[in-house]
């Protein structure tokens, strides 16, 4: 089977970045995320292929934090609107984990199904090749398996790599993956290798039946208690690989400008504030509840799977220690019969 020796990893990344913009997990200063391999600085950046999850997910590669939609000129008497978007260059995301790959599958559901296709997203998605990195040693905050994600078989992968110690097994899954294999040529060796064994998860989330049970828990006093410490800072939505909610805003100067979309967060009160002042989710508790119900119930009702892939980033990032695993388990264990 094709094997990629870790000693050749930089040669491989150099080779892959010849024909596409290549994104790899890097630690850079105080941050870590998926950065262009072309921007890699020997000495200050650190390649993070062996880390489970970098701080920021790779979602911006298929769904940028800000994205121009169209430009316009004119002040009203004549208006011209011209669709614009960054020309989607071929891209490779190298080394993302099963949770992040599954989150991109959630984006595919949102942006490409249910009547309308988001052509900005589709253009990027079509030009993206995914080299996913199978996981065998779940981290302290990992719970992907509980959310229906198989860490050893990432979905949406064009290639799966599996760590065997001093090398990776290279398993191409699609035509796009085959193209990468061909481009690597002799950098891939042919050897026998054995996949590692999946180790037990440290976090135990019990999501089974939770989406269904939540239908009857909208008014549960649990939400008030859980939301009481939430600062509605929105960091959970920013670090989340599957949070996709966006705003549409305008930038203008003189008689021209452009409209763009950018990440938004359901934790902010402006998110649902209507002209005239009415706000259906004006308080923190309502927004908190909506976020968790969107993740654990509403998305599941609409698309047949939760909008949480168990990466654990929000658990790490939350300044007040709100923990989605605890919330899932609390719902699971809640005795709703006494309240009904």
């Amino acid at each position: 089977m094709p094997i990629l020796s870790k000693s050749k990893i930089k040669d491989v990344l150099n080779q892959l970045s010849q024909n596409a913009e290549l994104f790899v997990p890097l630690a850079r200063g105080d941050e870590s995320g998926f950065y262009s391999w072309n921007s890699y600085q020997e000495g200050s950046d650190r390649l993070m292929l062996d880390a489970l999850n970098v701080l920021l997910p790779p979602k911006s590669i298929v769904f940028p934090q800000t994205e121009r939609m169209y430009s316009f000129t004119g002040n009203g008497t004549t208006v011209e609107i011209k669709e614009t978007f960054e020309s989607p260059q071929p891209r490779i995301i190298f080394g993302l984990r099963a949770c992040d790959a599954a989150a991109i599958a959630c984006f595919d559901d949102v942006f490409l199904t249910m009547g309308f296709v988001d052509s900005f997203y589709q253009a990027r998605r079509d030009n993206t090749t995914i080299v996913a990195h199978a996981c065998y040693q779940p981290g302290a905050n990992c719970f992907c398996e509980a959310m229906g994600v198989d860490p050893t078989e990432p979905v949406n992968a064009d290639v799966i790599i599996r760590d065997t110690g001093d090398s990776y097994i290279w398993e191409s899954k699609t035509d796009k993956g085959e193209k990468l294999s061909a481009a690597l040529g002799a950098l891939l060796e042919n050897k026998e290798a054995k996949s590692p064994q999946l180790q037990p998860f440290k976090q135990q989330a019990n999501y089974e039946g939770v989406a269904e049970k939540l239908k009857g828990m909208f008014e549960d006093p649990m939400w008030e208690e859980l939301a009481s410490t939430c600062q509605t800072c929105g960091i959970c939505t920013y670090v989340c690989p599957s949070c996709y909610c966006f705003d549409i805003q305008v930038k203008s100067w003189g008689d021209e400008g452009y409209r763009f979309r950018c990440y938004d967060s359901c934790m902010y009160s402006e998110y649902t504030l209507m002209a005239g002042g009415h706000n259906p989710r004006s308080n923190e508790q309502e927004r908190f509840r909506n976020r968790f119900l969107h993740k654990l119930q509403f998305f599941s009702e609409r698309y047949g799977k939760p909008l949480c892939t168990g990466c654990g980033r929000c658990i790490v990032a939350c300044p007040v220690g709100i923990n989605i695993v605890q919330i899932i388990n609390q719902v699971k264990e809640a005795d709703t019969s006494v309240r009904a």
Partner: protein
Amino acid sequence: MSEHKCNCENPLVPGVVEVIDIKDETPDVKSFFVRSIGGGVPFDVMPGQLGMVSLLPVGEGMYSVSWQEEQEYLHFAIKRVGLMTNELHRIEVGHQLGVRGPYGNGFPVEECKGKDMLFIAGGIGLAPLRSFIKYCFKHRQDYGKIQIIYGSRSYADLCFKDELFEKWPQEKDTEVYITIDNPEEGWDGHVGFVPAYLEEINPAAAGKIAVVCGPPVMIKFVLQSLEKMGYTDEQVISTLEMRMKCGIGKCGRCNVGSQYICLDGPVFNLAQLKQLPPEW
């Protein structure tokens, strides 16, 4: 960044329209009649569907299309409530806007065929119902008796006065009931709130569909009245409002439960509404 035309139809990019007429409906509601540059409508709408109106560079807002006149124009009746609508109320005929759509499910015009129709509206809530009312008049033989109950704060705040007082009462088998909140000089019509007036008129539930739109508090009491009068949840239809950005069920904010008001709504019957979390 390279800039180029996309070959695909992009539902997030508006087309340009020209405002061909503006009419004052009330002190804070204006009607805007728009058509594509060079003529025609930017898109066809069914009653109750939405259009996203872009006033460049100020902002975009989602409005129910109050009427599509053939291939001539789209009519939006828009209340001045915020930043964008304040600016919009300042434009003049000839101004060019962006419009994208149509969005949303619209009213169930087919399922209502053969039924008597009861339209209940308050304030600007008549704007979305008007498209359905006019549709019924246009296809008069498809619908039974038509009753319209409409209320506003004052006479001045009643929208579409020429239709309310002149045109609609003359339509075949049609009754128009109008009320204002407080007595005022020169008004000899009904005074009082819509829910109370509805109970006073007491239109029988049999064979009828009630379509309700207005301020949240009016909707709440009208729904209670209709229930008291024997209307089933399937006989009552309403149209919801939430903040919207994309219009195609993707940007997230207009959800009530798992439903996106811009895409799955804005029209729901009461049976469907009761399935949703009480956030509407």
